């Protein structure tokens, strides 16, 4: 069994962050992600790190801005309403090219909404959320092991491209327990951040972290330079899982825990004789357009069925990817209701016709 331990998603994520070299965490409790904060509160003092429960989410994200600007690996976590509060800070962090990791364990919305699992923050995560020309890299794990692995990647991606990275789970992933294995990663020798405001030691010119550029041409140059980094991210960091898409008549598109439920429905549909495949985006931004190109290149007529815990948000990216070359359908539950395999199967049967 290796070195597997049975852990709750939120706690496993926190442990993974610590192992990735995160020694600074600023947060504010909110269901269903509070265990991230609680774990950090317990662990950080023992390893010489900083855990700080801020007076609000707005404070927490600005502390992240400061710590990230000083060049350390830093994380904050929250759930939907709290992430809304952080948006101003996230935009500033993106505008100042400061790496950090932001965790959103999504719950039903809008407003205070509920506390049960949802995926209705897809638009907010992938299409801005805050103001300005920026993107978050958005990672969407579907198991606790994947959440652990992606947490390490999130810090690396953030540092490499100097951008904030979001890990987006849902209440189910945060609360459930699964066996996980932590890979040994050596973070003792991370590349130096020459841009960081970590003290000049009287040996170099001072660095400045800032997102205010009054001169339009200066701001445009910076946005264009950042866009080049986004293009690199699109080229290098797209991740997805595709199963049986080539011979399929119906291709499910689902991410996170919904993808697992869709896989159960897929297995049942196959037993009934339907040809079903699945595309599971792991990066929600950058969206895995190439998975759709590959699926469409087989030439047979296909229908894509986007399954989400929302009223239909990712389905818009599915339509962009398909670009009129196939039918796109949607099935979703919302408000904290999790779709069942049976419901998804019924939709597959509706699309595929009775057998």
């Amino acid at each position: 069994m290796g070195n597997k331990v049975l852990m709750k998603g939120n706690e496993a994520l926190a442990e993974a962050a610590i192992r990735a070299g995160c020694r600074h965490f600023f947060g504010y409790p909110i269901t269903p992600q509070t265990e991230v904060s609680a774990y950090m509160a317990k662990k950080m003092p023992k390893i010489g790190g900083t855990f700080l429960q801020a007076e609000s989410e707005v404070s927490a994200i600005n502390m992240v801005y400061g710590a990230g600007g000083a060049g350390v690996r830093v994380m904050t976590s929250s759930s939907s309403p709290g992430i809304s509060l952080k948006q101003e800070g996230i935009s500033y962090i993106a505008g100042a090219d400061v790496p950090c990791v932001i965790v959103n364990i999504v719950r039903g919305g809008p407003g205070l909404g509920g506390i049960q699992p949802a995926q209705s923050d897809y638009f907010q995560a992938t299409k801005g959320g805050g103001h300005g020309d920026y993107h978050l890299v958005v990672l969407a794990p579907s198991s606790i092991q994947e959440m652990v692995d992606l947490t390490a990647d999130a810090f690396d991606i953030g540092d490499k491209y100097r951008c904030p990275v979001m890990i987006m789970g849902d209440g189910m992933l945060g609360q459930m327990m699964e066996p996980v294995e932590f890979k040994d990663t050596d973070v003792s020798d991370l590349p130096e951040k020459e841009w960081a405001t970590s003290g000049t030691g009287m040996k170099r010119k001072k660095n400045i972290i800032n997102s205010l550029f009054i001169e339009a041409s200066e701001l445009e140059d910076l946005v264009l330079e950042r866009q080049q980094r986004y293009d690199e991210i699109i080229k290098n960091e797209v991740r997805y899982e595709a199963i049986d898409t080539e011979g399929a008549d119906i291709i499910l598109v689902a991410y996170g825990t919904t993808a697992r439920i869709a896989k159960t429905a897929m297995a049942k549909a196959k037993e009934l004789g339907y040809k079903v495949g699945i595309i599971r985006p792991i990066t929600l931004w950058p969206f895995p357009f190439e998975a759709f190109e590959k699926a469409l290149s087989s030439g047979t007529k296909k229908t894509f069925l986007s399954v989400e815990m929302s009223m239909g948000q990712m389905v818009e990216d599915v339509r962009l990817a398909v670009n009129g070359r196939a039918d796109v359908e949607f099935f979703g539950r919302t408000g904290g209701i999790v779709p069942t395999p049976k419901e998804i199967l019924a939709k597959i049967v509706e699309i595929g016709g009775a057998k």
Partner: protein
Amino acid sequence: MTHETIFAGFGGQGILFAGKVIAYAGMLEGKNVSHLPSYGPEMRGGTANCSVIVSDEDVASPIITEPANLVVMNGPSLDKFENAVIPGGKIFIDSALINRKCERDDADVFEIPATQMANDMGLPKLANMIMVGKLIKETQMFTWEQLKGAVTKLVPAAKAAMLDSNIKALEAGYNY
């Protein structure tokens, strides 16, 4: 082989821990497992439940809508999940706390007065372990030695005194 079990009762009965024992034992045996708790306001003094899957395959959906095994430790939980159990499934009822009979005639029903037994043994908090013992005996999900081994590893060193009591309770259920 896949075992899908729902544990349900009220907060404080150790419902989530009972599920954790099963998930942990499965992990130790190299199986794929998931443990999904209900969470939210209903847990505080209200009903609590968890879905535990132990499988040789990857666990796809961690949600169980049609359990093969149901362990219930209060009346509302029997009301809620009784009809979800698959035909031929197994239903384990703490008959010390649930007054009515199970109405399913297409499932194997086991009535165990676990809370009474636990009180009689002087282990009032461990009715959950009695139910786990009976579940494992009837489903053969694990051997007795595997179950005992899992609990031994799961009880933290600081609470070693609790280990004997837990095993006693498991044994009482296993042999009931």
